[in-house]
């Protein structure tokens, strides 16, 4: 097979397995994309971890610990896929803590209250699931397969998020304030989450059928699904321009795409601190990996 045949093959719905021939560009793009996903799951753990230790009831403690555990589990699944494509897990983690690899914007921001815990599980995870569902038909089959397990596990995360939020919204004024305040801070990152709009034929992820949905389509899906959920609770979204027009398209204040670029290239408010934490954890446990995983293939 050559590059042209391969392109035709994947565009026609063809599936690619680990041992199959693939163009260098496809392999490289795949590794980068999937590695970023793994990094995001791993970095996403850090903002939520703090709240595991502060969960206000035993039930929330268990649920939040299980949620974060799932995310670590997802990272494990994802890095295995990258490893089989040719980049070992340790290399990915080294690049991550050295600041050489990217992870999603939302995990560069601070969490300040229990309100954030609810908003993240409800809305950030919702935004992520939309992207993840669009990967279920990925041309690279091993990745599509793990996405099935990931999407299935994420279903409880969203319910947990909603439960946390609804409980607070039905609670005291202070609790409702916590939710609104968290939403005000997370709206910007949420609007950035799916990335700046790119025309379909210029998006290599769509061309190679790695993703089956463009950035803007994903964002529209998010707004369509979740803005009504937000409004029906009496919460406000900090964007006066946000509305659904007569064509069913959501209009909004254009996000600052420069800010997104700044953040994902390692200049977010919490980037350095979190990478430091990861680096330190890795350094402290290097001896464990040496003793236990030394013969790891």
């Amino acid at each position, binding site marked *: 097979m050559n590059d042209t045949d391969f392109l035709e093959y994947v565009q026609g719905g063809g599936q690619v397995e680990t041992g199959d021939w693939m163009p260098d560009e496809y392999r490289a793009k795949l590794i980068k994309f999937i590695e970023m996903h793994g990094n995001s799951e791993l970095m996403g753990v850090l903002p939520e971890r703090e709240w595991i230790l*502060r969960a206000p009831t*035993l039930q929330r403690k*268990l649920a939040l610990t299980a949620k974060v555990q799932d995310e*670590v589990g997802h990272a494990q699944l994802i890095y295995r896929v990258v490893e089989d494509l040719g980049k070992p897990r340790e290399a990915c983690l080294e690049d991550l803590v050295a600041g050489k690899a990217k992870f999603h914007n939302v995990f560069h921001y601070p969490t300040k209250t229990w309100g954030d815990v609810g908003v993240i599980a409800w809305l950030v995870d919702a935004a992520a699931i939309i992207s993840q569902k669009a990967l279920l038909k990925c041309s690279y089959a091993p990745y599509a397969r793990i996405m099935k397990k990931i999407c299935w596990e994420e279903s409880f995360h969203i319910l947990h998020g909603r439960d946390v939020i609804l*409980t607070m919204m039905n609670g005291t004024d202070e609790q409702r304030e916590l939710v609104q305040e968290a939403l005000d801070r997370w709206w910007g990152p949420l609007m950035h989450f799916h990335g700046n709009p790119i025309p379909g034929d210029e998006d290599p992820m769509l061309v190679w059928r790695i993703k089956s949905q463009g950035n803007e389509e994903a964002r529209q899906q998010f707004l369509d699904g979740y803005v009504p959920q937000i409004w029906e609770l009496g919460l406000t979204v900090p964007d006066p321009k946000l509305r659904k027009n007569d064509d069913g398209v959501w209009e909004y204040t254009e996000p600052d795409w420069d800010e997104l670029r700044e953040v994902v290239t390692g200049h977010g408010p919490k980037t350095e601190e979190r990478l430091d934490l990861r680096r330190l954890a890795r350094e402290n446990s290097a*001896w464990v990996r040496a003793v236990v995983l030394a013969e790891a293939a």
Partner: protein
Amino acid sequence: MSERAQLLIEIADDELILGWRNSEWTGIAPFLEEDVAFSSIAQNEIGHARALYQLVADELGTTADELAFDRSPQEYRCSRFVQLQLVPDWARTIARHVLYEEADEQRIAELKASDDPDVAGLAAKIDREEVYHRLHAKMWHDRLASEPRYVEALDELRPLVSERGEPTPDFEQLWEEMAMVRRSVPGATW
């Protein structure tokens, strides 16, 4: 408070605080597979604490959450051993895990023989879950047995296993963090 309640609270407090400490590793354990496994152990421990608190709560007319969160540090009955903050030291973490499982196995065996059917029943359930904890502890013990830092850790921690008394400074700090959100809006439902 009855003798039964006092004993159950002591065990529940051990499980709660150990589980809380073990959950500190979620997300930053030495490698991903172990991170997932150790998190399950931490969750189980908290689950055991919850079930034990529930038995006492029924007797005292309160709730498991109130017992778990709303007492002052001086009122907790956990051993000083489980209160220690051991992250990021994996050798000491595993040493504590191994020593705790050893001591706990005996305690659970006694509970299983209790005249009280609720206590005996719960102890049997906990015991069945603990089978995996013990396997996990043994697996790590075998792997680390010849590591000097692990052997040192065992020696250091073994004398502390049954020490109970005034809460340690580590515990005061843990308690502050544990109750932080809950106390921020007193009486609220979360």
